[in-house]
C-alpha cells in the first residue's frame, strides 16, 4: 500500500506504529490502507499467535485487537500480556463484532486496556482512539 496518499488533517501528526490483529483479512487490509493514508505505519497479522510474538519482539505505539479469532483469540492474547508484559495492555484498543457484557468491559478497564469498540466503528473514532494512546 502506498504511503503517498494521506489525509491532509493528519499530515502534521507524528507517525505512529500500529499493529492490527484480526482474522478478518478484509478488515485488516482496509484499516491498514486507511492508516497508510493517515501517514501511520501499520503491521497486520490475521492470527493471534503471530500477534503475541510480534508484541513480544517489536515496539508498537498502539495495538488494535479483535477478540473472536480461531485458535489463539483476543482473550488469550490479553491473558498472555497480563502475565508477561502488562505494560502493553494500555496500548490495546479492542475492536470486536462480539457483544461484550458490561462486566467484561469493566474487567478490560481494570486491566488498563485503552478502549473497547464494537464494530462497526466510525473510522475517525478509531483513528482518534489510536492517536489518544500516544498522547
Amino acid at each position, binding site marked *: 500500500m502506498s504511503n503517498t*496518499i494521506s*489525509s491532509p488533517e493528519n499530515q502534521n501528526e507524528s507517525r505512529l506504529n500500529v499493529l492490527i490483529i484480526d482474522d*478478518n483479512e*478484509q*478488515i485488516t487490509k*482496509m*484499516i491498514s*490502507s*486507511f492508516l497508510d*493514508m493517515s501517514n501511520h505505519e501499520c503491521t497486520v497479522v490475521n492470527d493471534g499467535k503471530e500477534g503475541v510474538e510480534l508484541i513480544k519482539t517489536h515496539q508498537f505505539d498502539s495495538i488494535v485487537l479483535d*477478540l*473472536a479469532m480461531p485458535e489463539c*483469540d*483476543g*482473550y*488469550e492474547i490479553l*491473558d498472555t500480556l497480563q*502475565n508477561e508484559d502488562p505494560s502493553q495492555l494500555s496500548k490495546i484498543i479492542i475492536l470486536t*463484532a*462480539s*457483544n*461484550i*457484557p458490561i*462486566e*467484561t468491559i*469493566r*474487567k478490560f478497564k481494570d486491566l488498563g486496556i485503552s478502549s473497547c469498540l*464494537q*464494530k*462497526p*466503528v*466510525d*473510522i475517525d473514532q478509531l483513528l482518534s482512539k489510536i492517536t489518544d494512546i500516544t498522547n
Partner: protein
Amino acid sequence: MTMEEALIENLVLGNDHKESMKKINENLIQYGLTPNQSKVYLFLTKTGEKTASAISKSLNIPRTESYHLLNSLEQKGIIFSIFGKPTKFNSVPIDDALTIVIDNEKKRISDLELKKEKILTLWETIPKHVEESENPDGNKFQILQGRNSILVKIERMVKTADKEMLVLGSDTNFIKFYHTEFVNLLKKTKAELQVLTTFSKKGKFALDGLPLNNIKKLDESNRHNFSFIIKDDSEVVFFINSGSSELMAIWTDSKSFVSTLKSLFKLIWRKSAFVLEKENKFTKNMSEDYDHRLREIEQEKVILDYLQQNLMVKKGGKNE
C-alpha cells in the same frame, strides 16, 4: 548384621533408591497392605524366592509374625509358596499384584453393598424404641475427614438438591479433587449450579467439564482462604484448612450457618463476572453469530466508504 544381610538390605531399601522404595511402600499401604506386609512383598519382589526364616532375619521381623505376614499375603494372592524343605516363598510380579489387590478391593466393596441390603432388611424387623427427633432439621454438625468421606457427603447433597448447589472456593482447593468424581457429581445435579472460583490459568483444569455458563470468577478482593458448598437452604460443607495434607471439612444443616454463607455467596456472585466469555461462543445461538457477521460486514463497508471517499477527494484534488 552379616555381610549378606547388609547386601540384601541395601538391595531392598537400596541407598540409591531408598526414596522410591519408600514411596512405593507408602502406596502399597494405600492399596490395603500393612507396612510389614508391604515390606515383605517388596523384599520378595526384589530378591526372589526366600524361606520364611531368611525373610524374618533380613527384615528383622519376629519369626512368628513373618509366618502370619506370608500367610496373609498368600491369601491376598500376591505371593506364593514353593513346595520343598524348607518351604520357600516368592512374589507375583508387581503389576499383576496391583491388579489382584484392586480386584480384591472391588469384590469387598460389592460384598459390602450386598450386605447393606441384608442389614437394612433385618433392621426393619426390629421394633424401634427411640422416638423420632422433634427437630429433624436441627443443628447437626459432622466433621468429615479425608477426601472420600467429603466426596460421599457431596454426592448425597447433589442427589437430594432440588433448588440450587452453590460452590465457592479457589481452584487450588478443587485440585485436591482432581481425578475423583467431584466434577461429574456437580454436573449431575438437577438443581441450578453456581460456581464461584478463582479460575486461574494453572488451576482451572480442576473444573474441566463444568458448564462455563455456571462459573463466575472470584476477583482478588474475594480470594479468601475458604471454600464451601451449599445445597438449597439446608446443608453446607465447609472446608477447613487444617494445615495437614488430609482434607477436612465440616458438614452442617444449621439454618443460621447455611443462610449466612448463602448470603455471602449471593453477594459475591452478584458482583462477579462470568469466566471467559470467549468459551461461551460455542453456546451462543445462531442469531448472535449472525449479528457478529453482520457487524463485521458493516465495519468493512464503513472503512470502504471512507477509503473511497478519500480516494475520490484525492483524485478530484489532483484533477483540479
